[in-house]
């Protein structure tokens, strides 16, 4: 007799490919259906309802921000805001990655550097970054620098600590082996261990990007002339839920695209990384 294998229920379930796709799509469809149903009910009561805009209203909002130029500035708002925000985000996360990576790497391997910075870094990492935003705005100005600094200060301790932990996991055997193969101390750090930690940096950046977006939008909401966060908080004054929804979806898609891109980058640049980890 053939053993019955459950499609969905239990530890041993084996959903076939079609079901996997269906399962992944289902929550989206359910959520959309509930939303549209609720929007329809509200619009029957009041056709001017702003809280739950219908698909037609959202489509009009897309046209307004992403296709038609802004009547005042002549720019297309969504692109202008995206460019401004991404510049801050990429700049901040890049600088934080470089600082965090080299700090974590050296802390993981050099007892002196570890002794000097581990306690301090752990302390710094526990400062809530948004709490020092006023200090950053006062010190670095409300222009670009203040926002980029918030992203850097908010994410570099996370990156440094994660890279430090990953570097500490490198077996002593690997370091000793490299020394017996004639590597210098510099060579051990930057030619043997660093290449083994690099893929982890990309994984870490994937994780801290969520926090980076938070800091970006928060700082743009408070003081800015452009940017995705600025726009959302600007149109909030007019209860323009349609534009907010378009912007939130756009930000989500950008973040999701980054995540997929970085994941593919790891498997493309470091084919040994995920395969070797499974042992």
């Amino acid at each position, binding site marked *: 007799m053939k053993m019955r294998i459950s499609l969905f229920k239990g530890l041993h379930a084996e959903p076939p490919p079609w079901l996997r796709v269906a399962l992944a799509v289902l929550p989206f469809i359910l959520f959309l259906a509930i939303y549209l149903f609720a929007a329809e009910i509200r619009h029957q009561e009041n056709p001017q309802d702003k809280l739950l805009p219908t698909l037609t209203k959202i489509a009009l909002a897309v046209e307004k921000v992403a296709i038609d130029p802004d009547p005042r500035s002549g720019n297309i708002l969504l692109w202008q805001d995206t460019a401004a925000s991404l510049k801050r985000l990429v700049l901040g996360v890049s600088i934080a990655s470089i600082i965090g990576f080299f700090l974590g790497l050296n802390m993981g391997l050099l007892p002196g550097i570890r002794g000097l910075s581990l306690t301090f870094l752990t302390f710094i990492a526990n400062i809530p970054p948004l709490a020092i935003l006023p200090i950053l705005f006062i010190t670095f100005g409300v222009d670009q620098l203040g926002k980029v600094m918030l992203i850097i200060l908010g994410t570099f301790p996370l990156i440094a600590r994660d890279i430090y932990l990953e570097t500490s996991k490198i*077996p002593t055997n*690997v370091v*000793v*082996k490299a020394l*017996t*193969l004639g*590597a210098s101390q510099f060579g051990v750090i930057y*030619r*043997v261990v660093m290449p083994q930690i690099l893929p982890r940096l990309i994984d870490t950046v994937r994780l801290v990007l969520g926090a980076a977006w938070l800091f970006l939008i928060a700082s743009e909401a408070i003081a800015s002339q452009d940017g995705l966060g600025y726009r959302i908080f600007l149109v909030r004054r007019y209860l323009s839920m349609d534009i907010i929804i378009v912007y939130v979806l756009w930000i989500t898609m950008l973040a999701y695209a980054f995540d997929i891109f970085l994941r593919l980058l790891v498997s493309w640049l*470091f084919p040994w990384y995920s395969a070797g980890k499974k042992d």
Partner: protein
Amino acid sequence: MHKSPDEYLLYCEDVTKAYGSKVVLEDIDLAVKHKEFCTVVGPSGCGKSTLLRLILGQERISSGTMLIDGAALHQPSPDRGIVYQKYSLFPHLTILENIMAGKQLSQPLWKKFSTRKTARDEAMVYLESVQLAEHAAKYPHQLSGGMQQRVAIAQALIMHPRVLLMDEPFGALDPGTRETMQLLILEIWEKYGMTIFFVTHDLEEAVFLGTRILVISQFYIHETKPPEESHGSRIVADYKLNDNAYSTRVKQTAAFGELIQTIRYEGFNPEVKQNAHDFNLTHSDSFVTYVGEK
């Protein structure tokens, strides 16, 4: 009963290694000639791997003298190669690059590309000598355990170390692969003429491979300390072994089996404790600097 340090590749006198209050090795006296194939056995936890790490320079002795070629030990360096049971290979490099690593890492970074061709050719020779040429482009995780250890041996060999240290290198391999590897390492030892220190928990392997076997054990009666007080391990037996037979058939002979039984009795049985002055140190290079009163 001192020996002259100059005649020996490795010379240890009264070497003790302790971690805090826990003494692992105590009063180790050992002199080993160049080109010896020295196997090290002992019960688990006796400190045989510790002895290896001391020779390597990965750890420092707590007291005593330890000389290599008459000079004090320093940090790990290319004159002493190492093959571990695990984590010997760099996971981010291909097999060929792993073997090239020694040639490349000992060069400054700016010479990496100008020396690449010669390093690659030389690495291929070593890769062929361990019969893995067709796997050059693969990564370590794609190879079986036995193949990975062969790569690790080739990786160490390319530096022409005077001493090759091996810490249970075949411990994780299945019996068939193990025997193939044993013959391979004997071949390599013969061909390249280096000193090998080979730590294993497998007595049969130790007796089969070595020209000299050191039994390290914590099961003995100390001259001065009472039995209930803990003491570090010592060399409790030291034999010269027959010249290597290049056939695994010697493993079936009676003498082979008897020697294993003797060593198991002398070193591995917690119930059997010899007095320190009764140790079976028959090897001609063996010496003891201090033995308490009878």
